[in-house]
């Protein structure tokens, strides 16, 4: 027994174990996702996240220990975001003719994302800090945490809501668009980029390269517009 616990203590203090678990869980999620095919719940972030959360809870491992290993994967998000310029550049001839639809969809979508979330929680009588935390939920995590803080919200709650929004959009976008018989992948990708930031963008790339390129630009534009709207909002509040 003490031998096993010695091994466990060693593994749990080395970043290797949880880095390996992160990649293994993702590979399992990928295979499960392919098997489930059309199921809306076959989202690799959702499945891998659920597997790892279960392992952490069962083993009593704190998130900080997990992140010691997972940080190496997490770090690659930065260069991967920069890399989104590449599919965008390759699809530039498809972007140029639809600048006007993109601008209109961005403003309408961004206002809907903020307004509808704020309206729903306000209808339940939520306090101002909860409202401020959900307002930027459709932007990427670092920006939403910063915006929530500047509005008097809770950055950690904002981060949770961002992840849940990302997974929700990634899970429902394909069945929703298919049910509506929308085959314009530029429009589909743009919508999921505005609604569900990077997690939606990752999903869009799995479906179609054009959808992915449009999701990437939508994510960037929505981050910029939401920041601007919140900046104006906070200036108006004084």
């Amino acid at each position, binding site marked *: 027994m003490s031998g096993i616990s010695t091994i466990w203590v060693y593994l749990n203090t080395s970043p290797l174990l949880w880095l390996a678990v992160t990649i293994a869980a993702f590979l399992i999620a990928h295979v499960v996702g392919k098997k489930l095919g059309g199921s809306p719940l076959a989202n690799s972030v959702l499945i891998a996240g659920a597997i*790892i959360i279960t392992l952490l809870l069962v083993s009593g491992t704190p998130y900080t220990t997990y992140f010691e290993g997972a940080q190496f994967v997490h770090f690659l*998000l930065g*260069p991967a975001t920069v890399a989104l310029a590449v*599919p*965008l550049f390759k699809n530039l001839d498809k972007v140029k003719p*639809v600048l006007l639809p993109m601008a209109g969809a961005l403003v309408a979508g961004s206002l*809907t994302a903020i307004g509808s*979330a704020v309206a729903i*929680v306000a209808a339940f009588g939520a306090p101002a800090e909860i409202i401020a935390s959900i307002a930027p939920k459709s932007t990427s995590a670092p920006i939403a945490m910063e915006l929530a803080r500047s509005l008097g919200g809770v950055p950690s709650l904002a981060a949770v*809501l961002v992840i849940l929004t990302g997974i929700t959009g990634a899970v429902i976008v394909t069945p929703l668009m298919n049910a509506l018989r929308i085959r314009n992948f530029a429009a589909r990708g743009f919508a999921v980029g505005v609604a569900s930031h990077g997690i939606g963008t990752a999903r869009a790339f799995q479906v179609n390269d054009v959808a992915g390129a449009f999701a990437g630009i939508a994510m960037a534009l929505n981050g910029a517009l939401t920041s601007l709207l919140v900046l104006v909002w906070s200036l108006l509040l004084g």
Partner: protein
Amino acid sequence: MSQASKTEPARPALTPVAILAGFAVLLGFQLAGETLVVATRLVLPSFAFPGPVAGMLLLLGFLVLRKTLDASTNAVSTGLIGVLSLLFVPSAVGVIQYGGVLVDWGGPLLLAVVLSTLATLLVTVFTFLWIAKLTGKQSS
């Protein structure tokens, strides 16, 4: 297609140094983006914008001006984007850290997230298609 062709790459694989060069381009533009955001904050302290997204816009501008995309940047970018979902897994697992903050308002917050995401998808996609139809331009 013979069996052998499955194991051989269709075109010459990038050298390890070329892969490093592709990474260097991405990291360099991320660094430039982060620096630009930090510099903007000196003037506008409440300015919130992710550095990597600024780096992406800078790389796009660079590619547009240069009009070409080199093979190493292309290969490394395509590879990273191919596993983009994986990169969000650590953040998604981070939800357990803050599960407690959802206790009091969990129901309304989850309802708001689902309904608002659905509404945003619908409003965005239909506004896009509507304006595209008005301006008589379609992209597929």
